[in-house]
Each structure stands twice: as C-alpha cells, then as structure tokens.
C-alpha cells in the first residue's frame, strides 16, 4: 500500500506533539521543527496531486477493508485543496516567524494541529472522521484566534467558540441520523445505500442531509450564517487570519463533497438536495459581503468581508452543478484563498507599521515607508481580488461568467458578480487612498518595513501570477476533477472494490 496519503496528517501530528513538549523558551528549536514540517508538506502535496491525477488513491487505516475500516481517499479535488492549503500555510508560517509567534505560548504547535485538522478534513472518506477533523481544526483555531489575548480577540473568540460548538452539535445530529438510516459512515458506501434506499426513508434522509449542509454552511460562512466571520477574522493575528482563509473553503469543500457524492445524481429524489436554496443564499452572501466591504472601518474588516464575497461567489458556482461550473469555481477557489491570505498578511504588516493605536483603521495615519513598493503590492492584490485583468481574479471571474446557463440565472449572477465587483473596487480604492495618500506627516511611524513579512505576502501573490501562466494545464486538471465529482463511480469503485460495478446493488 502506498503510504503517501497518510503523511499530510502524520507530519503535523508529530511535529505539533513534539513542539507541545518543548519548553516555551526554546523558540529557535520550535521554528526549526516547524519549518521542516511546513516545507515537507509541499512536496507531499505535489506527490499526491500527481498521484491522484492517475486515479483515486485509497489508504485503509489498519488495512481493514472499507466500509468496516476507516479510509482516507485522495481524489483530484482533495489533492488540489491540500496543495492550496500547504502553500497558504507555508506563507502564513513565514510571516509568523518574525515575531508573531512570540506573542503567546504554543503558537507553532497549535499551527501544526490546525494544519492537521484541515488536511485530515480534505483527505478523509468517512463522515464521522470528517467531524473529528473538523473538531481538531476548530479547537486549534479557537486557541490560535486567542493568540496574543487582546480584549477584542477574547470577545470575538467567545462568539466564534459558542457558535461553532452549537454547529458541532448539529453536525453530530446529522451524522447520527444518517447512520441510523443507512447503517454506515463511509461516504462512498453511504452513497450506494442512499441510492437504493426505500422512498419512505427519503424525508428523513433529506432532513439529515440538509442539516449537514447547514453545518457546512456555518463553517463556510454563507448567508445567514456569516455574521461571526468579519469580527473573528479581523481580530485575529495576521498569520492566523491568513491561515483561516482556507477554513471557509473547508466548509465549501465539504458541501461539494457531500453534495456530489452522497446526494449526487444517483440519489433519486434526494439528488441536488439543496442546490436551489444554495443558489439563492449564495447570491445574497455575495451581495451582503460587498456591502459589508464598502462599510468596513478597517483594512482587516474589509479583507474579512472580501472572504465572504468569495464564499458567495464559490457557493453560487457550486450550486450550478455542471462540470464546467465546478471546474471554474475551483479555479476561483484557489485564487481567492491565496489572495485573501496575501491581503491578510499585507493588512497585518500595514497595521504594524502604522502602530498599535491606529492599526488598519481608515483614518489618517503616519506615512508608510517605501510607499512605491507597498503601494504596488497592495495595488496588485487589489486588482487581483477585484477581478480586473491581468491577474488571476480576472480569469476566475471570466470563467464563472462564461459558464452560467442563460436565463434568469444569468441576470441575477451577472448583476451580483459585476455589481459586487464595482462595490469591491470602490471599497479597495477608498482603502488604498486612505492608507497611502491621506497621511499625517506629524505622526511617527511605529516600525519599518519588514522584508520577510512582505516576502510571505509576495509568495502568495506570485502563486496567484502562476495561476494565470499555468491556467490551461490547471483547467485541464480541474475539469477532470469536476467530471469525476459529477460522476462519482470511479471514487466509489476505488473505495469499495468489492461492489465494483454494482452501483445501487449494495447488500
């Protein structure tokens, strides 16, 4: 058996556990271990990306056959999400090295545990394990959000923790109901059993499935479940906020996975369970995020609302449920994750240079050092996130606009995406002009420009440029990923070789 699929979970598990045991004053040692872990993940993710291109990789823990044992299943989508997350994590880690890891205890260990939860959620093929990995990433995120312990972080953290504990309860109810109805927790097996379930079971299965989507919607921050996000993300330390940029995508990934695999085309009455509701909710999220961005009073809040905008856009693309739409949406997802990470890092660096008292708030502050360089970076990030040529946001938006089926859907989607884009450009223009031009030369700057911190943001921006250059091979990969999501037979056959071809004929 190929042991590569378990490595993305084992590396952060052991790195985190070792660092949790090292005393707090041995920071250089922790940084060394953490750097090894962070940079080992990227080649592993690339290896999985290549491996999954040839077919679904299945890892049976303890070599128990599915559906009795727990499995990890790596298809193209999982490998891709893993790769996106590992690049983002490396950049956030690089930024944190310059002092953010000193603000509290255990930063590096928590960071690794968070990565472990995120990677595990992408890899697992088991619904209850998805819950467990969600809990791992959430528990680590609770502690990371409080890292540095300012009053604002504690208040924001309280809301975040209470809401997510409630969400976990709903998750357990949904998983329990699905288990009671189907007798399995393996997602591929569950798909087969739901396809052959008696019609009388459909309402209860539908209720459980809807509950599951609501829980993922809470993690993904779609309307009306996004109100926790701006405050929590704006309050978090910059590298933590940057890493959190992948967390909403974990929710969206789970919606996509459950929606296409368990409640996919073969699920009879239950197929496309919520996609009409998801479509409406997604467009409202998109518009609400844009309005929030326009009204944000600080750069961090603005970026947090941009995360909501991207969530709305991605959810709308997923709700269309065609292979072309999913491929285009995945492209946009990669772009928006990296660019949101870059913007959070830039926002953190700007806030640091303007000093604690002013931070990222849109008030006249001290002039920033190196305005050409910093302004150029902010401009590039703003152009990309707003979806103007020539950067990755433009291609992402163009792909999305080109795949919407004509009819009423086009009208609403074009209006929301293009109108929202205008609001985002206005908000970013206001942010940039306040930060760089409405300065007060009498105020002293708090700190100089830090090359390492900036290079972390540049790393993510460069990755965005590569998305443009490699758009064609990437789209080929994404189209293959989308095709196998819409028709999950390959996935099910790989997970359950015993019932291969016997779709719908499970014992």
């Amino acid at each position: 058996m190929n042991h590569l699929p378990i490595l993305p979970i084992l590396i952060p598990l052991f790195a985190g556990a070792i660092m949790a045991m090292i005393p707090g004053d041995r920071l250089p040692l922790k940084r060394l271990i953490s750097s090894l872990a962070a940079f080992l993940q990227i080649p592993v993710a690339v290896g999985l990306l290549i491996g999954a291109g040839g077919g679904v990789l299945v890892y049976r823990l303890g070599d128990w056959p599915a559906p009795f044992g727990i499995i990890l299943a790596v298809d193209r989508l999982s490998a891709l999400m893993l790769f996106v997350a590992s690049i983002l994590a490396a950049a956030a880690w690089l930024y944190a090295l310059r002092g953010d890891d000193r603000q509290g205890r255990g930063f590096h260990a928590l960071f690794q545990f968070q990565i472990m939860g995120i990677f595990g959620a992408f890899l697992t093929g088991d619904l209850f394990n998805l819950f467990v990995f969600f809990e791992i990433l959430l528990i680590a995120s609770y502690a990371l959000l409080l890292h540095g312990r300012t009053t604002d972080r504690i208040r924001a953290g309280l809301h975040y923790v209470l809401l997510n504990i409630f969400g976990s309860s709903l998750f357990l109810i949904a998983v329990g109901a699905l288990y009671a109805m189907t007798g399995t927790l393996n997602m591929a097996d569950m798909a087969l059993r739901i396809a052959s379930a008696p019609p009388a079971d459909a309402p209860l299965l539908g209720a459980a499935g809807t509950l599951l989507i609501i829980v993922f919607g809470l993690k993904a921050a779609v309307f009306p479940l996004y109100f926790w996000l701006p405050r929590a993300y704006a309050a978090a330390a910059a590298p933590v906020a940057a890493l959190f940029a992948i967390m909403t995508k974990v929710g969206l990934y789970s919606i996509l996975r459950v929606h296409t695999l368990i409640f996919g085309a073969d699920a009879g009455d239950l197929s496309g369970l919520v996609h009409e509701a998801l479509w409406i909710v997604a467009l409202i999220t998109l518009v609400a995020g844009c309005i929030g961005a326009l009204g944000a009073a600080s750069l961090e809040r603005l970026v947090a609302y941009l995360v909501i905008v991207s969530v709305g856009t991605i959810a709308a693309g997923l709700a269309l449920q065609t292979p072309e739409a999913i491929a285009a949406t995945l492209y946009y997802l990669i772009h928006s994750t990296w660019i949101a990470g870059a913007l959070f890092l830039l926002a953190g660096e700007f806030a640091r240079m303007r000093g604690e008292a002013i931070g990222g708030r849109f008030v006249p502050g001290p002039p920033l050092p190196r305005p050409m360089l910093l302004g150029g970076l902010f401009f590039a990030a703003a152009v990309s996130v707003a979806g103007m040529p020539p950067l990755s946001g433009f291609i992402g938006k163009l792909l999305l606009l080109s795949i919407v089926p004509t009819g009423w859907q086009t009208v609403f989607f074009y209006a929301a995406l293009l109108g929202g884009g205008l609001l985002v450009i206005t908000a970013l223009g206001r942010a940039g002009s306040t930060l760089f031009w409405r300065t007060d030369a009498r105020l002293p700057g708090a700190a100089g420009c830090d090359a390492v911190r900036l290079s972390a943001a540049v790393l993510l921006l460069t990755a965005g440029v590569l998305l443009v250059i490699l758009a064609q091979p990437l789209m080929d990969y994404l189209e293959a990923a989308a095709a196998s999501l819409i028709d999950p037979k390959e996935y099910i056959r790989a997970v359950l070789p015993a019932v291969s071809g016997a779709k719908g004929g499970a014992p």
Partner: protein
Amino acid sequence: MELLYSMVLGGLAAAGVYLLLRGRTFPVVVGLTLLSYAVNLFLFATGRLATGLPAVIGHSETYADPLPQALVLTAIVIGFALTALAVILALAALSASGHDGVDDEKEQP
C-alpha cells in the same frame, strides 16, 4: 421505552436551545451542555434501543450495535473539552470587559 426516550431528548434539546439564546454567558454555557447531552443520547439511540444485549456478535441471538457507543465516547470527550474551553473563555471575557453579556454593551462598527 422509545417514547420516553424521545421525550427526554426533546426536552433536553428544547431547554438547551432556550438557554443558548439567553444574553449572558452562564446560561449559554449551561445550554450548550444540555444540548450536548441531548446529542449524545441521540447518537446512542442511532444503534436502536435494546437492553441486556452484548456488543459482540455470536454470544446471543441479536447484538447491540457497538459503533454508536464508540461514537458517543468520542463525542463526549470532545464535548466536555469544548465546554471547559467555553467556561474559561467566558471567564476571560468577563475579566477583560467587566461584564458577562454575550454581546457587547455597544457594538463597534
């Protein structure tokens, strides 16, 4: 037994949700606890209710499903840790801002 069980579950969940919607942190934490009791009992019942049956195949005619028991065990551990965290956080919020409301007195824009 099923009727009694489901009524207890419903009562616990309703009380939990009611307390969750209160404005101060202590009732909210108690509400979360009650809700997690309800969820744990619900998970336990997903293997169907039975008494006096072993969770092992081959020792009797029928057997109790062991998987929900394992799930409940995991859920209890996670739920307990999270409740402890919520209590600590509520105390930290109290000492940081001087009041025990879940929301701020005046919300910042």
